[in-house]
């Protein structure tokens, strides 16, 4: 008996996973010809999507990568019917997952997320049953505290301490909120966990509820994650039917229910107090703390807010013990961290590494180095709140304090690799554009300061920078950091401050040299036409509004630099890739 599992996380679907699934259905015929056809979540090997795994009862498993509907034909004929695996399309899972340790992603890509039995078969909900029937809430909290688990949403607050505070608050009703408002551009680990293993998060929430004495939980999730929302709804309904959520769990007298609340698209709502305001139906603006949500949160009730990845760790900690979790990682950062590895990297995707793994090990080892094969220039960690860590600090281990020492932050786990073709000034401008847009407008420095910084960066990228700009940027950045209420404002200048610190010469090249070394900022590059590639088709001549391109049909065209306004239009219309930036 064969089981065929098609990877249908968002990335699998985007690469054409549904067409692959359909082709299997067509070829296998009614009732799938005795083959179990299932869907599963993301295993993290995004660079090899669409992934299809074939499991033979008692004979092991074969993982195929880059599967297309056409390739399905041969897989069905050779492997399923003929019993011969198609060697050249096999992905070596062990090799690609070497150096990783899977705690949070333990079930992602392994189980059918819509099937609660598969989750239970791998030990799911055992931790919850053990907690509510055999442990006191205090013991649960001490186990989590002892494991050293810290918040994976970015700031790294010890989870055990937060639970203790919420437990100590006196109230009849308390709330657990799962923060699934994953807003960092370039971070998608929470989505993958929710899509691939929703029950682990629900179980983590129920355990948190038992520990702090809350009877209800809310998942605040981005509306932009339709698949994750659907899987969560199914999972909640499934758990309720099986008696794993609802009244009197495991006859212990403890009751816990979970509902979903869809966010409406505001980055600042990842901040605790803004998130609460948003659930209450208001504009998602942060407020002054204290009181902290653990004392007075949603509707004034004591509220414990944990991130998706944090909660997914909890059942593992209870079933394997605090010591097993502590044994992994560094002195102050225990366990693992999931990163979304992207950018100029050969093997992008989701990776989960033990804390203490160095950046070099992730980029060159797990990620397989850069696309071009050359060294990387920097990695951007922590999204818009993080910073760019240069290659010279590649030996930095993944650890909350050590990452902070570089000027970046751990953040939620985006890791974007950059090489020589990435302009660091442009990257700083990009992130500031994002935070400027997302600033809620409450604090003056964040609202107006980021705007002024963005204007300066845009000017530098447009070739109109002045020498004082560098100083002004640093000064403004410092002031915004000091005078903003929430994490968004306090960390908004980080991308600029870190690039100023490590890539000062690139700013100088833009401002004083009039050059963009990476040839990204169009205003600072010279356009030319490669005579070997130009076919003389005339498209660029027609497209050029400045009339700077000349050349007769079927002859090599020329760009007149003195008339060129550097709009880049020729670059986008050329079909033979002949326009060069120099």
């Amino acid at each position: 008996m064969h089981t065929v599992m098609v990877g249908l996380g968002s990335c699998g679907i985007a690469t054409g996973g549904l067409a692959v699934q359909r082709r299997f259905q067509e070829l296998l015929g009614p009732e799938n010809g005795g083959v179990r056809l299932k869907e599963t979540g993301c295993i993290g090997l995004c660079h090899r999507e669409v992934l299809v795994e074939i499991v033979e009862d008692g004979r092991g498993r074969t993982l195929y990568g880059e599967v297309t509907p056409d390739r399905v034909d041969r897989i069905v004929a050779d492997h399923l019917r003929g019993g011969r695996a198609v060697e050249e399309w096999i992905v070596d899972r062990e090799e690609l997952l070497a150096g990783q340790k899977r705690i949070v992603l333990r079930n992602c890509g392994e189980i059918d997320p819509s099937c609660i039995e598969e989750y239970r078969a791998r030990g799911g909900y055992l931790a919850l049953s053990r907690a509510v029937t055999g442990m006191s809430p205090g013991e649960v909290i001490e186990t989590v505290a002892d494991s050293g688990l810290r918040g994976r949403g970015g700031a790294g607050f010890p989870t055990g301490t937060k639970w203790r505070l919420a437990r100590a608050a006196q109230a009849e009703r308390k709330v657990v909120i799962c923060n699934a408002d994953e807003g960092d551009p370039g971070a998608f680990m929470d989505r993958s966990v929710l899509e691939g293993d929703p029950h682990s998060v629900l179980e983590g929430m129920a355990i948190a509820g038992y520990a702090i004495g809350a009877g209800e939980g809310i998942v605040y999730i981005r509306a932009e994650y339709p698949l994750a929302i659907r899987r969560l709804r199914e999972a909640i309904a499934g758990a309720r039917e099986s008696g794993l959520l609802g009244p009197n769990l495991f006859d212990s007298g403890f009751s816990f229910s979970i509902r979903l609340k869809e966010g409406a698209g505001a980055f600042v709502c990842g901040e605790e107090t803004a998130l609460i305001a948003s659930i209450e139906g208001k504009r998602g603006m942060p407020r002054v703390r204290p009181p902290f949500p653990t004392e007075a949160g949603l509707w004034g009730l004591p509220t414990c807010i944990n991130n998706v990845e944090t909660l997914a760790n909890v059942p593992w900690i209870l079933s394997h013990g605090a010591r097993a979790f502590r044994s992994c990682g560094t002195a102050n950062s225990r366990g693992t961290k999931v990163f979304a590895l992207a950018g100029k990297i050969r093997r992008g995707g989701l990776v989960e590494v033990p804390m203490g793994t160095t950046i070099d090990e992730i980029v060159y080892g797990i990620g397989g180095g850069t696309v071009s094969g050359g060294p990387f220039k920097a990695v951007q960690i922590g999204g818009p709140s993080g910073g760019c860590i240069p290659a010279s600090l590649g030996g930095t281990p993944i650890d909350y304090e050590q990452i902070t020492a570089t000027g970046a932050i751990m953040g939620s786990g985006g890791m974007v690799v950059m090489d020589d073709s990435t302009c660091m000034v442009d990257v700083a401008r990009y992130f500031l554009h994002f935070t400027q847009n997302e600033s809620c407008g409450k604090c003056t420095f964040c609202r107006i300061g980021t705007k002024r910084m963005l204007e300066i960066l845009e000017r530098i990228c447009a070739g109109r920078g002045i020498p004082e700009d560098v100083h002004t940027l640093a000064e403004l950045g410092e002031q915004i950091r000091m005078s903003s209420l929430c994490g968004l404002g306090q960390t908004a200048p980080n991308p600029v401050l870190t690039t100023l610190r490590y890539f000062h010469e690139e700013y100088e090249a833009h401002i004083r040299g009039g050059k963009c070394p990476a040839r990204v900022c169009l205003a600072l590059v010279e356009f030319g036409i490669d005579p070997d590639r130009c076919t003389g088709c005339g498209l660029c001549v027609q497209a050029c509004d400045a009339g700077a391109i000349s050349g007769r049909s079927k002859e090599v065209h020329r760009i007149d630099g003195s008339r060129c306004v550097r709009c880049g239009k020729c670059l986008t219309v050329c079909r033979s890739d002949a326009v060069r930036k120099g």
Partner: protein
Amino acid sequence: MATDEERAKVVVMPAFGRMLWRHGGEPGMLIPLLQAAQDSYGYIPPLAIEQIAMATGIPASEVYGVITFYRQFRLQPLGRHVIRVCKGTACHVQGAEMISRTLEEELGIRQGETSEDGLFTCLEVACLGCCSLAPVVMIGERAYGRLTPQRLRSVLRTVRRKTGRGA
């Protein structure tokens, strides 16, 4: 607020109406109500704002304030094809800027706008989450990855041609 002409055009959609009737008075329902209105109409028409204000007792001005705070809500209807341009970090370093420019040139609209023929609406989104396919654009439900300006132009031509045939 809504003019009489607009009132005549907008019919209260059943799903949205039910939600108003059942949950309008509960605390914290404003955002779910707005989401229901947008699901029903494709955008939030002025009449829906009035009705939500009445049902919840929240002043229309405050409802409007909440609408404009969140990126999800639209006060204008969408075009037939919604193009989502990914502006995530990975896409940015792989040339998403050139993709946006190409779209602007090709369709004559900027982010958030709908083309005059009502065919295309262009939206920039923070991250579509298929970073290894960067740069990515989604047209309707389909994602197009590893785009170059040239490939994007040919994709748009195909979409236009299919639409012309009534597909």
